[in-house]
């Protein structure tokens, strides 16, 4: 009991202590060394700016959050709908792999930013255009991890399945390969969410979406007006939301989708 209590307090004390130390260092450096909130806003500058972006007359942080989540979901859902089926197709059928692999390997390294001109031309200044940029960032991790998951299905699983009556591709995929590949797919989704979230600022930089709201959009607005404390607020909000998304996803995955795996272990 004592050991457990000690471990708990240590687990809590270390990260909290580190964060507090960093904040103190940050404040001290900003106030006494840099002394210019353009170059480095202090922690208190950022708190004040944070208050104004939420409650001030021109504050739109909450609306920005909602619009950015809309763009994020558009991109992620599209990435899932495209990435998983294509990954399955390439992972399961060698001919599909041979046909599509070169195309995907050419498209994959192209940065999402490079797609902005076509996002404008194809989709205009819409939420879908912003979602498209996020989709580009997110679809490849999903596709490749799905592909990898299907390629790495143990052969004995396939053979056992066939013996037990799964004799066509659809049932083999559905009952054997997909469950086996799920851990890899989930890993891909998690990576994709991180990459997609990182693409958010790029997705909102060119005036897409509502034109007034978006975390990336208004981060850039404050940048253009040289209001650096507010820029830092938005940067931190992006970081915290990214963290929250990852934690929620991991919680959901552990609780729902990989229950059988944990029980097995």
């Amino acid at each position, binding site marked *: 009991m004592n050991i457990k209590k000690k471990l708990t307090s*240590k687990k809590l*004390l*270390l990260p909290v*202590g*580190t964060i507090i*130390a960093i904040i*103190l*260092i940050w404040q*001290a*450096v900003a106030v*006494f*060394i*840099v002394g*210019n*909130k*353009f*170059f480095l806003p202090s922690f208190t500058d950022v708190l004040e700016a944070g208050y104004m972006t939420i409650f001030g*007359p*021109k504050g739109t942080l909450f609306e920005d959050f909602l619009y950015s989540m809309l763009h994020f979901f558009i991109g992620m859902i599209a990435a899932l709908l495209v990435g998983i089926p294509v990954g399955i197709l390439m992972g399961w059928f060698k001919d599909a792999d041979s046909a599509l692999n070169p195309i995907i390997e050419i498209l994959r390294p192209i940065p999402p930013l490079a797609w*902005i*001109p076509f996002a*404008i*031309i194809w*989709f*205009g*200044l819409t939420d879908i255009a912003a979602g498209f940029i996020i989709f580009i960032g997110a679809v490849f991790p999903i596709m490749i991890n799905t592909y990898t998951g299907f390629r790495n299905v143990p052969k004995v699983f396939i053979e056992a399945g066939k013996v037990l009556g799964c004799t066509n591709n659809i049932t083999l995929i559905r009952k054997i390969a997909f469950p086996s590949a799920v851990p890899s797919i989930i890993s891909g989704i998690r990576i994709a969410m991180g990459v997609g979230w990182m693409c958010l600022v790029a997705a909102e930089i*060119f*005036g897409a979406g509502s*034109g*007034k709201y978006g975390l990336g959009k208004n981060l*850039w*607005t404050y*940048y*253009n*007006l*040289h*209001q*650096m404390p507010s820029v830092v607020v938005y940067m931190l909000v992006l970081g915290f939301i990214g963290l929250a998304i990852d934690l929620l996803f991991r919680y959901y995955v552990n609780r729902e989708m990989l229950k059988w795996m944990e029980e097995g272990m």
Partner: protein
Amino acid sequence: MKKISGLILLVFIAAAVVLTAGCTGTDETPAGTAEELNFGYQPSTHQIAYMAAMEKGWWSENLAPFGYTIDRNKNEFQFPTGAPEMQSMIAGDIDVAYVGAAPVISALATGLDGKIVAAVQTQGSALVVGNDIVYEKPEDLKGHTIATFPPGTIQDTLLRGWLRDNGIDDENDVDIRPMGPGDAITAITAGQIDAVFLPAPSPTIVENDGAGRIVVNSGEMMKNHPCCVLVVSGKMIRENPDAVAEIIKTHIKATDYIKANKDEAAEIYSGYTKNTVETVKDSFSNWDGEWVSDPNIITGGVMDYVKTQAELGYIEKELTQDEIFDLSFYEKATA
């Protein structure tokens, strides 16, 4: 507990190192070394004077006696709009800026150490509407999407001010999208937005692409309105005021030169950007801009921008003329 103590001690040691490291910095330039001078500019025909002076080697030639070295490959920086250019100047990365007057205002309000010392040109932007858009008066813009430069720029400040003057709510009656010149041209060419308000030569590019037509020149929004200006850093003003006067002399020479040699000016601009010479010449015939040097003719207009930017909430306090301009160098340069 020992581990925690050790960690805390380590953190404080790191903090101490950071604190002391900051105190040991030095800004001194080694004696005898020529100082590099960094220029910022935008890809607009508004600022051809800058490009001409660089192309002709006048910047490096005229400023060398004052202890400056200027290498075109290292010391000039192009920015899509004025806002990031001012960001760089606030950060100390550029010493001389050809930039819109409005971004200078919002930059000064947030800590820029610099002054407007000369004018570069007046007017010179235009509202272009898509082919399917009916336009006869400002009210016809209601319900439409207009792309223009980001908040704090000349185009954004001027457009919003003009809309308000005409009884149009710039936040709710029209949909203003902040964009760089390339994105805006792409969007209207693709028919994805209804209008753009951009500095030359972009309006001509859109017209020549058959994607729209110019319906309002910016001089109709505010007659003889200030546009681009020449800004010099406070550091340079304090340390080398004679060089500042020389910069203005060079600017005046370049301005007179491009006015007298428009064909060559078009070629210089074409060399700096990817526009064809023909497009640039078309834009000269197609704009209402005028290249100028005298800052005295623009002080009133700039103060109008200050008022507009305060109303728009871009700046928290209104700046005074003396906080924005230093007119003495122009007098010195033209004496």
